[in-house]
């Protein structure tokens, strides 16, 4: 896709976008303590003295976090660093109990990689990954509970995060949205993060700058904690416009941290981050350097599932359109559902039914795929009845509606309602004769050149058969007799 340029008063502007995505590693317990990492508990109930930064408390790393970080790195086609170091990032904040965040700085566990994103126009683009490092989450401050106080809940403090930093390779809000969507799909396929943005399991820091095409990079602003794909798009669009207006108005962009206001879709400078920061990173003396064996990495590589891009390519090879393949592989669950439906069925037919009939019905009922009343096996059963000519495609739609309603199997409904397609030529011929006998004037019109009436005859025959006559046979017979 060509760069989406923004029009300003002084000409075209190009956006340069990089993302830092914080993805919570899917584990039972925290990165450095044995407290639960689950979402939604009562305040300060999932806090150990370690997470609360009590005197004398020490961190011990959760081995699953290391494994899942490596797994994610492999899924991002990235270099796994066999030597990495946990460092302390020092700053004071109410929800940062230790006064530092344990993170990785000079030696992250995962280095450079890349992923392919799918754009709305059907094209793809490669986006570089700068690094992935493992770090602790902070607690949560609530500012609206009291006029002059903030309330602090440390349940989230110490939760394991992967910070995935992209290269500044995106040039439009759509690309950024596609990047987040693809990243979320990958971590879900890998089972390393649940990707639930509304629970904060994935949060995006968006770096935006603008420049005239061909110019050097402009000064960037970082928009913190944007927590939906739609908001990422809105925030970028607003921020790029704002920066262009500032520059075109004769101002300069100040490098700063900004907040996205979800209510009005704007960004504003964060007041608490005004102080110049000096994080004084240094290796955490409570933790030793992390050294991995190549065999550990190789063993993880062997357990990687087929990832969305590979799956998509395979689906296309099966005859699916690029669009259908993208839609079906965008979510791990959807792809798995589709593959069950397509098992022993025509790939394209299955794709159509999953992406149109089922998706439409679910959408209408306000349901998600995981609570679909029609299971993948059931839908597969319905398609089998179409393929073996037991029912027509048209009847299949009625049967499907019944299945969606009742949860019954297709075969049962067909038997119950006697919907089995009539393929007995003799029986169909009888109906054809009847229809022809009833419409001598139409026959005359047809014969005088009104070809379109052929469809009328087909329709009449099908109607008379209760929709059960095999359309191909009906066509054949009518052609012969007219």
């Amino acid at each position, binding site marked *: 896709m060509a760069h989406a340029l923004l029009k300003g008063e002084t000409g075209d502007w190009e956006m340069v976008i990089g993302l830092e995505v914080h993805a919570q590693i899917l584990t039972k317990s925290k990165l450095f303590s044995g407290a639960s990492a689950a979402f939604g508990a009562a305040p300060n109930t999932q806090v150990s003295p370690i997470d609360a930064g009590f005197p004398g408390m020490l961190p011990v790393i959760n081995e699953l976090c290391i494994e899942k970080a490596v797994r994610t790195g492999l899924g991002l086609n990235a270099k796994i660093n066999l030597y990495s170091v946990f460092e302390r990032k020092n700053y004071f904040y109410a929800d940062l109990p230790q006064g530092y965040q344990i993170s990785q700085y000079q030696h992250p566990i995962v280095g450079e990689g890349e992923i392919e994103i799918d754009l709305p126009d059907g094209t793809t683009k490669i986006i570089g990954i700068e690094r992935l490092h493992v770090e602790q989450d902070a607690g949560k401050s609530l500012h609206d509970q009291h006029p002059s106080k903030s309330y602090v809940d440390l349940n989230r403090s110490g939760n394991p995060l992967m910070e995935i930093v992209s290269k500044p390779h995106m040039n439009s809000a759509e690309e950024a949205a596609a990047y987040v969507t693809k990243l979320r799909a990958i971590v879900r396929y890998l089972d390393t993060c649940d990707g639930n943005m509304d629970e904060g399991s994935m949060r995006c820091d968006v770096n935006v700058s603008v420049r005239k095409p061909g110019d050097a990079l402009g000064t960037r602003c970082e928009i913190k904690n944007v927590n939906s794909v739609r908001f990422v798009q809105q925030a970028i669009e607003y921020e790029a416009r704002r920066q262009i207006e500032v520059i075109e108005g004769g101002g300069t962009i100040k490098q700063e941290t900004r907040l996205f206001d979800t209510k009005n879709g704007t960004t504003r400078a964060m007041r608490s981050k005004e102080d110049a920061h000096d994080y004084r990173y240094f290796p955490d003396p409570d933790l030793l*350097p992390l050294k991995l064996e190549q065999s550990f990495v190789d063993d993880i590589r062997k357990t990687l599932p087929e990832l969305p891009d590979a799956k998509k390519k395979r689906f296309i090879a099966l005859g699916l359109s690029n669009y259908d393949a993208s839609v079906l592989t965008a979510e791990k669950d959807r792809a798995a559902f589709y593959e069950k439906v397509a098992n022993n069925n025509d790939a394209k037919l299955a794709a159509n039914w999953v992406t149109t009939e089922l998706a439409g019905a679910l959408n209408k009922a306000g349901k998600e795929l995981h609570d679909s009343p029609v299971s993948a096996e059931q839908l597969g059963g319905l398609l089998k009845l179409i393929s073996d000519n037991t029912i027509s495609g048209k009847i299949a739609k009625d049967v499907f509606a019944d299945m969606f309603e009742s949860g019954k199997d297709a075969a049962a409904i067909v038997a119950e309602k006697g919907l089995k397609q009539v393929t007995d030529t003799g029986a169909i011929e009888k109906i054809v004769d009847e229809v022809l006998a009833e419409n001598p004037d139409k026959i005359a019109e047809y014969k005088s050149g009104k070809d379109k009436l052929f469809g009328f005859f087909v329709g009449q025959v099908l109607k008379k058969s209760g929709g059960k006559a095999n359309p191909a046979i009906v066509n054949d017979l009518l052609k012969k007799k007219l």
Partner: protein
Amino acid sequence: MSIDINTVRKVAKLARIRTTDADAEVLSGELNNILSMIEQLNEVKTDGVEPMTSVIEMNLPARADEVTDGDMPDKILSCAPEKAAGFFVVPKVVE
């Protein structure tokens, strides 16, 4: 390098320690004495020497992913100077 009063103030701010001008004056002298002692390290040739992080030459030990801790809000809040409704309470933070 030496630490003047402004540097003392800047460092004290980073460390979140309130420092009066008189404190900063005294500290500047003391810290410079310490610093000039430290700067004797420049006499040592360290080319090609890896910085030492730990004297322990072993790999980072790890624990299994099990929930073994937490679920003690009363204990966690027991020492708090100010708390309410299960939260720690601090002066309002404006973001």
